[in-house]
């Protein structure tokens, strides 16, 4: 895969406030990369640097081999889908999409063809003459994507583009976006704080915290092999167990429960013991909260609807897992 974007030794200060200490990141051509992290972790700032809307305090932004650090946004061949879409309210859907092409002086015939093509891709054909205020949130979101896509940018930058939509619509658009990216073979840099969104859509996830990359890898690797407690906590649910000087992370679905006094079991011996504190219904699963002996720590295990043993509050339990499921993590 060819390298498309390289961020080299990037730092960013807002006044005296250091947002990004030092950061290097490479994004390859055709990748769907997600920058994931809690708000204030610097992910949006990073995205805006690629767009040219922020300048790094030090470091370089390289696009397709060219140093674009000093280039203003309007001279960069990248396009952004803004968090609240930033559609031009005084222009129709078509005029919004046409804007970028006009700026590049694309001849009218070709422009119309390209506009029709993105209108088709984003299923907006019947809304072409409407103003943004006459569209629903999901439709506005599609216009924002169409307006960026029509310019055939080298990279499409998406700043929490689904954040303002309701759950069902978000699910639907996640799939649409992913298919669009695959179908067109485009490079997407996607910013979100929603870990589920990141896991379902990305080829690669870059997890950030306090301006530092915590882990960079494919969704599967990040989910199953979190490098440190921050990642394990941020992605999915995790339980942490200290054994000796090491810390192990365990997903609730990998944590098994057995009666405290069980004998001759055909599974590894329990490593910890505790008392069931609470059981909460979650649809397909029940979450079983267990208070560990000798500590105040509470851990979570899942109980499936067809499990033989139904746990009750105040039951005494042993906690066991297969060694391959416990992931040794660095402490934050």
């Amino acid at each position, binding site marked *: 895969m060819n390298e498309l974007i390289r961020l080299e030794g990037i730092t960013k200060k807002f006044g005296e406030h250091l947002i990004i200490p030092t950061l290097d990141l490479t994004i390859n051509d055709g990748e769907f990369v997600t920058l994931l992290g809690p708000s204030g972790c610097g992910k949006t700032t990073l995205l805006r640097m690629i767009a*040219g809307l922020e300048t790094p305090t030090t470091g370089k932004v390289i696009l397709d081999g060219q140093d674009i650090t000093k280039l203003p946004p309007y001279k960069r061949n*990248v396009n952004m889908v803004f968090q609240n879409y*930033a559609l031009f309210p005084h222009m129709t859907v078509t005029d919004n999409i046409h804007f970028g092409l006009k700026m590049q002086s694309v001849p009218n015939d070709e422009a119309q063809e390209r506009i029709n093509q993105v209108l088709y891709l984003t299923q907006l054909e019947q809304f072409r003459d409407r103003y943004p205020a006459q569209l629903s949130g999901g439709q506005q979101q599609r216009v924002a994507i169409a307006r960026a896509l029509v310019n055939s940018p080298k990279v499409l930058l998406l700043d929490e583009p689904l954040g303002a939509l309701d759950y069902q619509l978000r699910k639907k658009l996640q799939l649409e976006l992913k298919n669009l990216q695959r179908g067109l073979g485009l490079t997407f840099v996607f910013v979100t704080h929603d870990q589920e969104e990141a896991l379902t859509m990305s080829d690669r996830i870059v997890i950030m915290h306090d301006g530092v990359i915590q882990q960079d890898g494919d969704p599967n690797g990040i989910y199953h092999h979190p490098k440190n407690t921050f990642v394990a906590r941020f992605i999915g649910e995790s339980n942490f167990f200290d054994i000796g000087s090491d810390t192990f992370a365990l997903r609730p679905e990998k944590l098994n429960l057995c009666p405290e006094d069980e004998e001759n079991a055909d599974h590894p011996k329990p490593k910890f013991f505790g008392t069931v504190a609470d059981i909460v219904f979650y649809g397909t699963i029940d979450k079983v909260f267990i208070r560990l002996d000798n500590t105040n720590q509470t851990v979570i295990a899942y109980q499936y609807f067809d499990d033989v043993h139904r746990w009750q509050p105040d039951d005494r339990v042993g906690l066991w897992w297969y060694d391959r499921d416990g992931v040794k993590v660095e402490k934050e």
Partner: protein
Amino acid sequence: MKNGKLLIAPSMLWLGFFFIIPMLIVVAVSFAARTPYGQVVFNWNINNYLRFLEPLYLSIFAQTLLVALVTTVVTILMGYPLAYYIAQLPKRWQQPGLILCMIPFWINFLIRSYAWVIILRAQGVLNTLLLKMGFIEQPLQLLYNEGAVMLGMIYSLLPFMILPIYVSIEQLDRRLLEAASDLGAPPFTAFRKITLPLTMPGVAAGTILVFISSLGMFVVPDVMGGAKSALVGNLIQNQFLSARDWPFGSALSIVLAALSLLLIILYYRAIQAQNGGAENAKNMA
């Protein structure tokens, strides 16, 4: 909530007594005649309106419209950049900036007009300065001409243009400009395509305020224009105060009011047609 309507009763009564009824009286008087001694006789005729069609009065009207138009255009050209500049200032400097624009209003309007006379007259501050510095040998005729009237009007009405434009620029979503830049628009293009159309409602509001105010203005032409440049405002004032011809003065007032109304309607139509999305812009916010 039904009783909430009572809250508007005081203002409705006020408007009724001091605005609507006097207006109706003016309409009635405009169809009356006057005796040689200035008394109003209600004999229902349209002679006052016919008299308005005499070339003398038509030309005064045309002159008034021209002055109002120039004043409006100049205040837009001066006010927009200033409003834009203030709106770009850091938040804590915006309020002081606006207050600076408003400070002249703390001084009585008549006094400010006479202050201009002191500056501009033949032995005034400006002429003395220019003479002493040797730029001119004869005092310039700066006062009592159309230029002086326009200067006074622009000076006194500029803040009415700045404030509404400032509000519309201040409310503009800056992310739209980022989006425009991201889509390849250099700063000036982004201004022309995004900022300007979206702040037109502010310009429209300022235009109405300035244009209507300058149509009816009589103090400035009186003090700074001298006898030569009579505008409709002065004409009306004279009918009531010196000529004692209330019916004709009333007819002139009605014509002026009707004209203003017509121009406002036409102007809003034009703005809306040219800028169809402005309404959407408002709805979205």
